[in-house]
């Protein structure tokens, strides 16, 4: 496979975007077909490139002019994240009705995400990420300019931070190429910038950030594609940080802080979910909850934890693809997707959470406390999911039965693929080995079980029979009575102090300059003075400059 082929996963969606834009006069259907083809082609190209060689491939086209070269590198971890990002994106572009403009911009955003993932150096990753974030904002405005969308600044900040981290690496170690940066160059400060990029790039915050708010828009077309692509891209940065640090973060306390942050994110999401007044608001929290657990697992700093994080990201990807396809009405599809996201055994999310929590316990020290908090959070997630079944829809979106069926199938896939978690581990072993050392005996001794420090997870032997028994038993069972929405609306609990914080925030927002002092802060008057071309101001400035320089 010639190295130039590494451009294919990026070029194909761009070409498809060109086709989609060119076919604008022929109606949106052609653009939709082009969009779907472009996304699937990119995914196919990644798969073919990896399967053909099954080892890291690199392409260096030469310097671009701003201190970085067009260095592309497709290694195992890039393939894993590429698949996690592209599968739901391709599904959504295939199933959702889009205008040609949205399709075109979505394809360009997908190409940017693939560029960021395939990039061999940090600055190019920042360029790709910033492009994807900008195009996401553009998509939001194309979809519905009146609806709430992430502020542009909030999605750009992380990529500026990453670019800064990249240039700092260049200054301190002479390069920002992932494979060439010396281990000692990853200082706490640089890692801090990378961590900021990772957390803010996908809005992984304990409070209700844009990553949750975007799911409350009237239409979920853009929110779903954005979540599907930006979430894995952001956490991908932490995985690359492991590669830079030879499998470690600069300080072990950084692992603990990030893991605790992940649990806080999941807990915040669960607390909001258990008080959600509608199913739509509950569903808006599901991806964020999974992201929190994925962050916790990845941050632990072990191969098992990283694998658990990947499993949870995979689950989040499928849930992200399912959410916008759900109809408003209650039914098996909503129940299955909620159950899949909540981590009902023996689902994929269940396996990922169990592995993550087990790994945290086995890491010891304060990670054990983080694990207890994580387990408690998981129960709150379960309670919120249970409560959500009886909630009112909360949105007036129409989704066809066919789409609801696809959503149900995606939910079933998450629930049914728990037994395959060990097989996935044996597939991901090479990818994980590329960024950190594997435990002695590897991640999975065989495709049926995963080895942790103190236990072994018999995924196939235990979850397989449980899945079969469960499927048979549920098929033979009789559904219970339906709930009344009125009962379900009450939150399970309220966090003390939240009301006080909200009141304080409102008070801060309502602060204004007193009337009698407003004239002092009149921007229009200041502008008139500055832009009036007044010699007195110029002379005063000249004197000020002279004083400033001659002191």
């Amino acid at each position, binding site marked *: 496979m010639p190295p130039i082929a590494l451009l294919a996963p990026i070029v194909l969606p761009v070409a498809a975007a060109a086709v989609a834009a060119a076919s604008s006069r022929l109606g949106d259907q052609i653009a939709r077909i082009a969009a779907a083809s472009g996304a699937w082609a990119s995914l196919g190209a990644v798969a073919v490139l990896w399967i053909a060689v099954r080892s890291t491939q690199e392409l260096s086209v030469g310097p671009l002019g701003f201190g970085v070269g067009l260095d592309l590198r497709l290694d195992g971890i890039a393939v894993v994240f590429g698949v996690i990002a592209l599968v739901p994106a391709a599904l959504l572009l295939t199933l959702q009705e889009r205008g040609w403009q949205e399709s075109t911009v979505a394809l360009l955003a997908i190409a940017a995400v693939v560029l960021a993932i395939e990039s061999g150096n940090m600055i190019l990753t920042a*360029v790709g990420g910033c*492009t994807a974030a900008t195009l996401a904002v553009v998509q939001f*405005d194309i979809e519905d300019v009146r609806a709430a969308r992430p502020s542009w*600044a909030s999605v750009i900040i992380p990529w500026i931070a990453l*670019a800064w981290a990249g240039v700092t690496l260049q200054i301190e170690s002479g390069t920002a190429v992932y494979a060439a940066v010396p281990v000692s160059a990853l200082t706490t400060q640089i890692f801090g910038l990378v961590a900021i990029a990772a957390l803010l790039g996908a809005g992984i915050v304990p409070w209700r950030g844009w990553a949750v708010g975007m799911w409350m828009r009237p239409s979920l077309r853009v929110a779903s594609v954005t979540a599907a692509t930006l979430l894995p891209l952001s956490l991908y940065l932490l995985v690359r940080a492991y590669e830079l640090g030879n499998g470690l973060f600069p300080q072990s306390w950084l692992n603990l802080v990030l893991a605790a942050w992940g649990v806080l994110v999941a807990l915040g999401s669960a607390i909001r979910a258990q008080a959600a007044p509608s199913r739509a608001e509950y569903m808006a929290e599901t991806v964020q909850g999974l992201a929190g657990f994925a962050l916790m697992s990845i941050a632990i700093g072990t191969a098992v934890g990283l694998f658990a994080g990947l499993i949870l990201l995979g689950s989040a990807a499928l849930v992200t693809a399912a959410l916008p396809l759900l109809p408003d009405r209650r039914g098996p599809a909503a129940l299955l997707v909620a159950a899949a996201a909540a981590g009902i055994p023996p689902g994929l999310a269940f396996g990922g959470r169990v592995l993550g929590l087990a790994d945290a316990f086995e890491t010891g020290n304060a990670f054990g406390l983080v694990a207890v908090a994580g387990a408690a959070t998981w129960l709150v997630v379960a309670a919120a999911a249970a409560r959500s079944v009886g909630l009112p829809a909360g949105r007036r979106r129409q989704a066809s039965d066919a789409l609801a069926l696809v959503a149900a199938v995606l939910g079933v896939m998450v629930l049914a693929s728990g037994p395959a978690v060990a097989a996935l581990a044996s597939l991901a072993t090479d990818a994980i080995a590329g960024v950190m050392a594997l435990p002695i005996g590897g991640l999975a001794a065989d495709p049926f079980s995963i080895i942790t420090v103190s236990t072994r997870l018999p995924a196939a032997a235990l979850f397989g029979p449980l899945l079969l028994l469960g499927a048979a038993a549920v098929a033979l069972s009789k559904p219970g009575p339906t709930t009344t929405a009125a009962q379900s609306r009450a939150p399970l609990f309220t966090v003390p102090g939240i009301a006080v914080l909200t009141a304080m925030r409102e008070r801060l927002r309502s602060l204004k300059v007193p009337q009698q002092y407003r004239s002092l802060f009149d921007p229009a008057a200041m502008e008139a003075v*500055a832009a009036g071309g007044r010699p007195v101001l110029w002379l005063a400035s000249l004197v000020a400059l002279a004083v*400033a*320089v001659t002191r």
Partner: protein
Amino acid sequence: MEPELAVALPAVGAACATAFKPRPRLAFASAAALGVAGVVAVILSRADLTSDQLGIPLTLSPASRAILLAAAAALAILVALPPPRADRSNLLRWGLGGLAGMTAMAAAPSLGLGVIVLLLLLVLQASGTGHRVYANRFRAPALAVVLLALAIALAAMQGPSLLTRLIVVCLVAGLAAALGVLPYMHEFDPDEPTAVSPIPWLAFVGPVLAVVVVGRAEAMVEGAEDAFGALLIGLGLMNIVVATLATWRTSSDAAAWRYSFIADWGLALCGLGLVVPDGVGAALLVFYSILLGRLPLYLWSRQSLREKATTERPINFIVAAALAGSAPFAGFPARILLLRAATSLYWPLALVLALSFLLWLPGSLRLGRTIGAPTGRQLIGVAVALALSVAFGLFPRPLLGLAGL
């Protein structure tokens, strides 16, 4: 002979466009032909070739040459795809006149001659029919000329180190006054024709003038290089903060555009003040994005500015992204270079710059809307500007190579 031709041919072209005004076709054809010939002469004027045909050695530095070519390209785009109600031969007349003056400034062997040419340009522009009071049109550029002349005069004397620092002040303040950035903003009338407004100083003549002044300043501020850089950075930061906020909050859309040029100049001044190659590269990329992006977009937005028509179509958001310097547009690599230059010198400055980059966003959204719903030639023009911006944003190396970086 090339530098002489590079100055003379566009000048003659501008003169033809003026002389043949009653016969627009002839005026356009002659001016266009001479303009193209002038650009060819600029292309042939390599840095290692010094011409002495007129008794003074004329050379174009790589940076000046690159910016002259970018300015010529911007003029060509605007003449090929003129804004609504714009007369091509008039565009050519002003553009070629400016180009001739810029080339003369760039090729001049001393700053003194360059300032004399600047003075001539200022008089030519002030002689145009504008809406502002004649004296107001004159004042700020004239102050710039006086300050630069003072710097030259002081540089001819020996004295205490204070003298060198005063030269620094005169150079920086003179440059700021010529450009019309804070605190020396020119008076601005939104209804005034662009050619006689302060915009050409910011968006057409300014880049070459900045390269010439900063290039010549090296010898004049010996011993006070730090003060020179610090003053440029300080003015740059002030312009970034004030102008980005003003772009967002000012009442007039046209004024918002003017502030957005000033904000970009803030970046460029910071880059020039950082003195390391990355900083200069960042400044050059900002100049390219001003000449080939912001200036044409401003001119194409004038019609909807007059009609006060703002739209929220995809093209508006993409233009906003380009104006905000977000990836993949040309502003982003400039910002990356600036970050690297600042980090290598003093990282807190990089932090301030990184935060200031966010200030472009709200104003750019506003400016993007003022483009309206371009159609026909305007739409093609906007698409060309965006395509160029993406090309330079992803692969700026040829541009920086052209400037010898």
